[in-house]
């Protein structure tokens, strides 16, 4: 199996350990992984802030870069949701027929990480070992955008030593919302505080998710409040074979 990794701009810049974990995990599962250095951003930030033309150039760039790949793996559900929910509209409005058909052909080959593992590779047990109490945060884009459903839970349930603790109000947004977290910083903070109450009630050591964007917000909030719970991308748990990922 060959796959090309779209790491996403913010994982590349701020969370390279997640990318390294994806590489470790997928290569352990026998995937022949490739990384195209020309990649930058999917355009989500621009699209969701209203910068449509700018989002279009990045969407076009993505399709042109990946059109010949066997499949694309992305460790960020919001970026995958951007591609699935918004690219078609952007190309409809601003693109040409060639681009639209290239995108239509590429789309079925674009996978979020947990989809790639469970649907494409057909594995729930990735051979991970992570002896810790873990709370799973369902990001809105993973939950309602991609309908990931049981996928992350199936993966987590097969990690040796891991104790998964259910989080109340799992479907409620953590308040990140991209530029919302800055434009509406105070409301975003109130939403974060509500989310932290639910997360802390689990007494877990780690809060995991399929989006480092939510985790940057939740983790930044935990750190500011001197709380011990640590954010960790699910890829890092799944890559781990002995104790926490380094």
């Amino acid at each position, binding site marked *: 199996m060959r796959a090309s990794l779209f*790491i996403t*701009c913010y994982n*590349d*810049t*701020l969370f*390279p*350990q997640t*990318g*390294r974990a994806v*590489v*470790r995990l997928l290569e352990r599962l026998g995937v022949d*992984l490739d*990384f195209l*250095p020309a*990649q*930058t*951003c999917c355009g989500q*930030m*621009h*699209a*969701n*802030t*209203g*910068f*449509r033309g*700018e989002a279009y*150039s*990045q969407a076009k760039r993505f399709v042109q870069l990946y059109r010949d790949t066997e499949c694309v793996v992305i460790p960020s559900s919001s970026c995958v949701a951007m591609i699935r*929910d918004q690219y078609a509209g952007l190309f409809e409005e601003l693109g040409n027929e060639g681009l639209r058909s290239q995108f239509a052909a590429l789309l079925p080959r674009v996978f979020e990480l947990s989809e790639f593992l469970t649907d494409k590779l057909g594995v729930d047990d990735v051979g991970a070992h992570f002896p810790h109490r873990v709370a799973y945060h369902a990001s*809105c884009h993973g939950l*309602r*955008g991609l309908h990931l459903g049981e996928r992350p839970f199936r993966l987590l349930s097969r990690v040796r030593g891991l104790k998964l603790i259910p989080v109340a109000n799992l*479907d*409620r*947004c953590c*308040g*990140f*919302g*991209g530029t*919302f*977290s*800055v*434009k*509406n*910083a*105070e*409301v*975003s*903070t*109130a*939403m*974060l505080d*509500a989310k932290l109450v639910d997360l802390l009630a689990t007494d877990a050591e780690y809060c995991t998710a399929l989006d480092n964007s939510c985790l*940057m*917000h939740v*983790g*930044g*909030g935990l*750190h*500011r409040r001197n709380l011990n719970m640590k954010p960790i991308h699910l890829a890092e748990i799944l890559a781990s074979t002995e104790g926490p990922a380094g």
Partner: protein
Amino acid sequence: MSGPVMDPRLAPPFPQAALPILQNTQLRKNVAHATDVIQTKRNRLVAEKQDWQQLRSAAAAIRAHVLANLAHYLEEFEKNCTAAGGVVHWARDAAEARQIIIDILREEKATEVIKIKTMTSAEIQLNPSLEKAGISAVETDLAELILQLGDDEPSHIVVPALHVNRQQVREIFARRMSLPQLPDDPEALAAAARTYLRKKFLSVPTAISGANFLIAENGSVAIVESEGNGRMCLTLPRTLITLAGIEKVLPRFSDLEVLLQVLARSATGERLNPYNSLWSGVVPGDGPQKFHVVLLDNGRSEILGRKVERQTLQCIRCAACLNTCPVYRQTGGHAYGSPYAGPIGAILTPQLEHMQHAQSLPYASSLCAACYEVCPVKINIPEVLIDLRAKVVDQEREEASRWTDPMYMGMKAANFVFGSASRFRLAQRFGKLGLRFFTDKDGWIRKLPSLGARWTLSRDLPGMPDQTFRDWWAEREARGGKEAR
């Protein structure tokens, strides 16, 4: 503290309007509790319906069909309502609607008018205009009465006084009805309101209502409610004026079969509303003998012409999107500066204002899509929010002030950076150098300038790591790929 400003032309932007509310612990507690109660009921009643998704699809299809043929159904409604003895008026905007209503009331020599809860009348700022014309409006919906007596404003489409709790209601009634000994149990409060309102029902001969639905095929109007006060207003007065947005029309009477089901379950978590009133024109000797319908455009036909935004008009005002919204949960309705709060308000209000006011509202959402999931007529609110944001930005592109807006400039710079991998890599390096200055010894950033300060208001930021992923990958490749790891 001054009261909430509910005129989108005058209201402060959402982030500012939210600030005092975020400090109001009692109000936030009331909102969270009330929305939890409604949502729990709603979820239970939706879960018991095996064919909920089919019902949703049917409701959405009916509403979309209406919008695609709106002129036809409105004319059919006008014809049939007129034939049944009603008088139909067309109002292009809020001012026209207010004038039509005031003219009718003047002809009736009315000094007082009783009202059923109607958010559309709040949309056109009807009550203040009536006051100016020397006509006092009496709200008869229990929640609206609480707000009117408490000099407060609605914060929810279905449960307008949702932000007020029982003790606060007692205080308002005791003060305004001169009942110092009034207890705060629901029976006593309802009894006090009943005594107060009964006099009005029996003495005021003119009434104003909104409409949940207009039925084209027979010219009927439908109103659903929980208290029966609405029915009093609809049956006791001599003259009834119904104010309805033009989008409220349905083709057939039988369409109610679908819409009343999804509305009641979504709005109040009931199988059917306790009171479903339906009437057609005037019946001699029974009920109001003069009946007027004011059909209000006020920006709606403009919305109708927009491909993505058109679905906004499918709304049946159930407020399920408010109850599930994590933003509304923190701020309640007043921060939206409009009688239409929550996710639907965030898309409807700026459009009713022709995208000239309330431009902060499309940004008052984390795009979590909980609203879309519960919407009984499948309005893709996140999609509309994003489209409206694009319209706001397109306006900003024309304004000189964009050059000093850090968000605008940041977005343009980011776009330049994302345009090539070498620029991106360079930006990563400069970013790291720049951030080093703000990074504490433990590798965390606690204080940033400019827009970054909005982040560090409540969240730390991990400092930039030693090596980006792409640099790690390049190094690994140079060492010969995976074996060398």
